[in-house]
Structures are given as C-alpha cells and as structure tokens.
C-alpha cells in the first residue's frame, strides 16, 4: 500500500514536470512580448531591452526553463511581472475562493446528477426519463457563459433572489456554483442513469426483492451504493473540467479566485502567473485523481482486498 502511494507520488511529480515544460515552451512561443507590454507603447528599444534583461528573458530558453524548475522545486513560482509580487502569495490569497466555488459546484452537480439519473433509471422509458434525459442533454450542450447569463437574468435581475456578483456570503456562491455544476450535472445524470439501470438488473437486486424489502430500501441500500462506484472515479477527472470552467465563471461573476487572476494575467502576458495557475490546476487534478483512487477501496471491499 505504502509503496503504491510512493509510486503514485513520483508519477505525480513527473506529470507536473511535463505540464511545466509544455506550458513553458508554449508560452515562450507566443508572439506577444512581455517586456514590451510592461514597458508600454512609448518606451524606447533600450528600455524594452533593459526590462527584458532584468526579467532574464534574453537568456536561452533552456537556461530560463532550468532556472524556473530550479525555483519550482524550492516552492518558488517566481514573481509577477506586472504586480511585482511573489506568484505563490497571489495564488494563496485567491485559492480559498476558488476551492469554495469548486466544492459547491461539485456538490450541486453530484446531488442534481445522482437524483435525476436515479429518477430517470427508475422510470425508464416513461415521461420522467425522457424529460430528465432531454434536460441533461441541454445542460451538457449549453456553453457556460450562456448558462451564467441566463441564471443572472432570471435569479438575480428578475427575481432578485441572489446578488449579481461579489463574494463573501453563502448567497454569493449559489449562482456561480450552479453555473459550474449544471454542465456536470448533465453528465452525471446520464452516467448514473445507465449505472442504475445496470445495477437494477443484477442478481443481488432480485435477491433483495425476494427478501421482501421495500422499494425505498432496495434503491438506497442495494442499488445506489453499487451504482455510484464508477461515479467516484469521475469526480477526480471532473476537477480538470472545473478548472477550465472556473476562468469563465469567475470572470462573469467577478469572483475573486485564481480564475480571475489567470484571466488578468493572460491579458498582461504575465507569464509567471499563467505558469503558476496552470501548475496549480494540474496539481488539483492530480490530487483529485489520487483522492478518487484511494477512496475507491474504502467504498468497494473487492478493491480493498486486492
């Protein structure tokens, strides 16, 4: 068990290294020049060259990369070009907001997805099934900014139930989290539906019926625990999806998380921040998958004994 954990840790480090290398090369291949952006439109060529030298951007790519990795292993993500602050400090300040948003989003997608998927499976071929599957299809297909604007129009502008934007209270979380969760809920509803349909046909469900158990107990105790097993692994992968959505959602709702930080950094070609946010996202995905992997045996005794 411990050795498996160690191997996973080494694997994770390698993945992070790979992500860093690819992002680094991609960013430096960009036609935009961060030194010119910092210097401003009217700066002389000499000023730009000075800034470039100051940032170390005049060195060969490999040297810059080694320098970056050297810092990275010591936990140093470099300094923001524009804000002149340590990147790690900037990210640390904004991470809690993003984590709150993601946790709320995952909660919403799992609750809605599992409920609707189960309902659809239990009413297979009937109206409820078709209604749920159509809704799920729309949820999966709708772009996030459209969902965000729709939610804002209905629940903030028209009904006034939730604030338009901002951060701080529970009611601020609802709309951005719902925007994130609705897409996932559609996926989950479809997956849970097929998983539940599959489990309903299993012999042990027939055994449960033969014992005279109530439908409620059969669903809650026998069907769902088995049906959610494949879903657990999904949540780990899901965090990657979320990270992409977070940038859009935070921008629309003015949510002060790392998505917004990334959005500003992209506009300013603030490469250290973009690197930092990318690596943080990669780390989040790795941790999500690790948690899912180590959660699976807790829930499924068959995996435990292997």
């Amino acid at each position, binding site marked *: 068990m411990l050795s498996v954990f160690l191997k996973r840790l080494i694997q994770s480090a390698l993945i992070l290294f790979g992500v860093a290398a690819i992002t680094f090369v991609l960013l430096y291949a960009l036609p935009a020049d961060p030194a010119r952006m910092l210097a401003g439109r009217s700066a002389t060529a000499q000023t730009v060259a000075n800034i470039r030298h100051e940032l170390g951007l005049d060195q060969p790519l490999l040297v810059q990369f080694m320098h970056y990795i050297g810092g990275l292993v010591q936990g140093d993500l470099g300094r923001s070009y524009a804000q002149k602050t340590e990147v790690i400090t900037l990210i640390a300040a904004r991470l809690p907001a993003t984590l709150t948003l993601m946790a709320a989003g995952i909660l919403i997608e799992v609750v809605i997805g599992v409920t609707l998927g189960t309902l659809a499976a239990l009413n297979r071929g009937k109206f409820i099934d078709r209604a749920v599957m159509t809704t799920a299809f729309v949820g999966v297909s709708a772009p996030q900014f459209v969902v965000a604007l729709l939610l804002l129009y209905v629940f903030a502008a028209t009904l006034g139930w939730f604030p338009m934007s901002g951060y701080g209270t529970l009611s601020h979380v609802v709309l951005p989290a719902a925007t994130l969760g609705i897409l996932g809920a559609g996926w989950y509803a479809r997956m849970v539906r097929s998983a539940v349909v599959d489990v309903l046909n299993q012999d*042990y469900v027939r055994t449960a019926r*033969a014992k005279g158990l109530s439908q409620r107990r059969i669903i809650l105790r026998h069907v769902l625990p088995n049906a959610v097993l494949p879903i657990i692994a999904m949540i780990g992968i899901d965090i990657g999806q979320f990270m992409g959505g977070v940038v859009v959602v935070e921008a629309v709702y003015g949510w002060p998380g790392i998505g917004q930080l990334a959005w500003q950094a992209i506009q300013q070609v603030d490469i250290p921040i973009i690197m930092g946010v990318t690596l943080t996202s990669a780390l989040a995905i790795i941790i999500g998958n690790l948690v899912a992997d180590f959660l699976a045996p807790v*829930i*499924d005794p068959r995996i435990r004994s292997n």
Partner: protein
Amino acid sequence: MSDTKSRPATVLSVRDLSIDARTPSGLKRILDGISFDLAAGETLCLAGESGSGKSVTSLAIMGLLPKASLRVASGEIRLGDTDLLRLSEKAMRQVRGGDVAMIFQEPMTSLNPVMTVGTQLMEAIREHQDAANAEDVAKHMLDAVHITDPARRMTQYPHELSGGMRQRVMIAMALSCRPKVLIADEPTTALDVTVQAQILKLMRELKQEFGTSIVMITHDMGVVAEMADRVVIMQNGKTVEQGDVMDIFHRPSVTYTRELLAAVPRLGTYAGTDEPPRISSAPIRPPFPKPVLEVSDLTVTYGGKSGWFGRGAEVPPTVKGISFRLEAGQTLGLVGESGSGKSTTGKAVLGLIPFKGTVRIDGQDIAGLSARAMQPIRRTAQMIFQDPYASLDPRMSVGAAIAEPLVIHKIGNASERRDRVAALLKRVGLTPDAAERYPHEFSGGQRQRICIARALALEPKLIIADESVAALDVSVRARVLDLMLELQEQMGLAYLFISHDMAVIEKMAHSVAVMRGGELVEMGTRRQVFEEQRNEYTRKLIGAVPIPDPEVYRRVAAG
C-alpha cells in the same frame, strides 16, 4: 398413484396459471394452464429443458415477474387461503422472504458485493420478525448451514467466500424467517459436483429441521432423483406429466418424459468398454505413431509478469508442470472442478496464453512462436467454446462466420468457399441454406453445430472442446456429442475434451486425465479411471455425481 393416498395438507397450490409475454407482435403465451400442489414437508421438482417455463413459474409465485415484459393472464396461486396474485404489493412484501423464500442459481452474483454477509442476513430477518435479536438469529442460521466461525463470517464480504459458501449464506438468508415454502431455482447448477452434493444434503437436512416445503426447479434429472418426492415435468410452458418420483422415473406415461430420461447421461452407462460408442460404420484408422499433441511439463502462471507498478507479487502457477499426449482419432478427457486449471491448459495448448514447457502440435514445438509463425499451426488445431451464444458474431451471417477461417488463411476463392460452407453445414447436420441466416435465428444446439462447422473449416487434426456441451439441454447435448463422435470416426480427429461432467467424459474419452489444483492427479484409460477408481480424489468426484434413478439413489443413501 400417490394422489389417491391420504396426503398431508396442501401448502401451496397453483391453479391454471397462464402467463403472457409482451412481444413487438403482441402477447405470446409462455406459460399455459399450469397446475400443481405442494404438500407440507414435500419436495416438488419442476423439471424441464430451457424454455419450459419453470423459472417463470417460480418468479410468478414470488410476485417477481418483470412487469414490463410479462403478465399473468389467468389462474391462482394459493398459499393457504390467500391468492397471492390478488395481494397488494405491500401485502406481497410480507409474504416474500417471510412465508415464501427463494434461492437462485448464481451464488456468485446473488449477494450484494458492497455489503457484509451479516448485514444482508440481518436485513432479511429485521424485515419479517423481531428486530432486536436479528444478530443472534443470523449467527444461528450461519451455524445451521454449517458455516464455521459465524461471528467472523458476518463481517466478511461476499467476494471473500467461495461459491458453495455463498449458496449456504443464501440458504441461511432464505430460511431465516422460517418460510412455509422455499423455492430453489437451479440452486446447484453453477456449483462444482462435490459442492453440489454438500448443498443438496444440506437442503434435505434443513427441510426436516425447519419443516419447510420445497419447490425445486432443475434441468438435472440426477438432482430430481435425489431430491424430489414428486415431480412435475414441463415442456414449452405446459405440464407434460406429474406424479410420484418413482412413477415418473420408472413408469413414465408420456413420450416426452421417456425421451428426457433416455437422454440423461448416466455415469456407468459405458462401463466395460475401452472406447466411446460407435456412431458410424467408418473403419477405425490404425494408430498413427506420431502424436497430434504432445505436452510436457506445461506450467502456466497468471499475473506473474511485471506491470505498471513494477513486479507483481509471486503468484502460484495455475497449471503445474503437467504432461500428456494425444494421438489422431483419440479423445483425451480432461476433467476437474472449477479452478483445477483445465481450461487454462486448453488455452495454453493453442498458444493463446504464455506458458513454460513444451507443447508440440503435429510434431512442431509452439513455444515462443510469433503470431505469424503460429498461423499455419492454427490450421491444425481449433477450439470450440462453451457458450454458443457468445462465440458467434450476431452481425455476421452463419456462412460468413464459417468461411472466415478460410478467408484468414487465404484458402479458395469466393465460390469455392461457398461450396465448402455448404458442405460443412451438411456435415454437421444443418441445411446449406443456413449460410444466409444469422445466429439469433438458431437454437443453442444448432449454434454449437455452427461453431463445430467453423472449427472444421480448416480441416484440423486436433480440436480443443472446452465445456462445449455444458450450456446445452440434455437432449440436445446427446445429439451434439454423437455428432462429435461421428466426425471423429470419419475424419480421424483428435479431441482434447475439457469438461466438469463425469458422465460426458465417460461417453467421449478414450483416456482420461483428472486435474486438481493445477496438477494431474490421475491419468489412465477410461476403464482405469472410471472402473478401477485407483485415486481417492477421482473416487470422490465420481461419488458426488447425482444418480438419475431415485431407487438406486435411495439404496445407496441408505448405505
């Protein structure tokens, strides 16, 4: 007839039960006016081949018919004074698991894999009786089905138990609420023969102890002979005949019953012979000096290779250094219980899995051959699998399936292949027009004939038959076995015939190898293995086979 004698009170009475299946072309009657009575303390066997309606009957009694596809057309199912078909779902839940309990065919999948055995047992108890002492009752029940260390078993999960143990747990669960009627649907079909013997014995004991009446559903006339007081023979949704077990076996009044009993393989039928029964009048070929298959020191280990996470743990080999040889026109029966390594041996012999040791097919060593080098050898050796439903591509016509090996080996042009397919179909007893049709249009027995035709397409010398008749009904099974014997006589085929069924092996084999735990415990001629019974394990295997004769069984059981 026993019906004229005074009988104990009737517990369960099924009257004129008819059930319809909803099909795209309207309702189709699949159960047609079934009637029978179950007396207190009696074991009634519903016996018949697939499609006879015996399982549907049992599900109807439990009120577990899938409503979307089946519906009760008419009839009554009386438990005492209540007609179960007229009960509300809520009232029926009280009956289910309470007055009427059921155990199923598949012990491996009939328990919830993520719930402990104890929880599943107690769940049934709490549903129907005083919840306070559920744990004590559960432990007592595990003890009653002879499961050792009940307290520890309660905390285990189903996958930690063997198939036989799981079926014991199912029986404990079913009997925990002391039902008046226990329905057992093929309860031992998925189990090894020695485990089957233990479970059947347990059911007989518990019937006495708990005073439960049993409705047992089985296709196995040996099980019927050992278990039944009375028998209902079913065919195509109708009752063909019913009566006392002795009458059914010794004085069957209906032709179908006689045919069914005649088709039942009886161990010892071929005693005193040195080779399988002759089907054709083809001359027997003189023994050829060079064996078709020569296996020496074959060892197979699963999962011992290094994986994604480095070296896996050391795994004991599944097959441990076995050796045998097989000549043209001969059959070696490879017999053993599940996990004995017999199927693994069959796969290794064809080079389908990695192995250590030597395997010579028609004189050529196949160890370490590449897929390309292996291809010409695959013409010599072919395989027929257990499940004729799963081993034919449903979207490929029968003709295309049989011609496929010819296409792969680039033999003949399109019209020559068509002629070959037609000839092969005739050879296995089907008409050439079958080539245009698709697998779903054929019965299980016909599909297995198609699989045999496909295996014969390349004119092999050796055929590995892995449980090739296990999924077939007895009457169909007998005909497929005869076909295989006939083909052997005419074509000089060598068979490596893998089976768990001693009676089938006795019919088919010239010589027999008995496997246990990856080793050959005994190998010899059919006479040596079946009649001399020199090996203790072989004796145990043979002794566990149900005797399809109630009189002989009772004599043996009485000592």
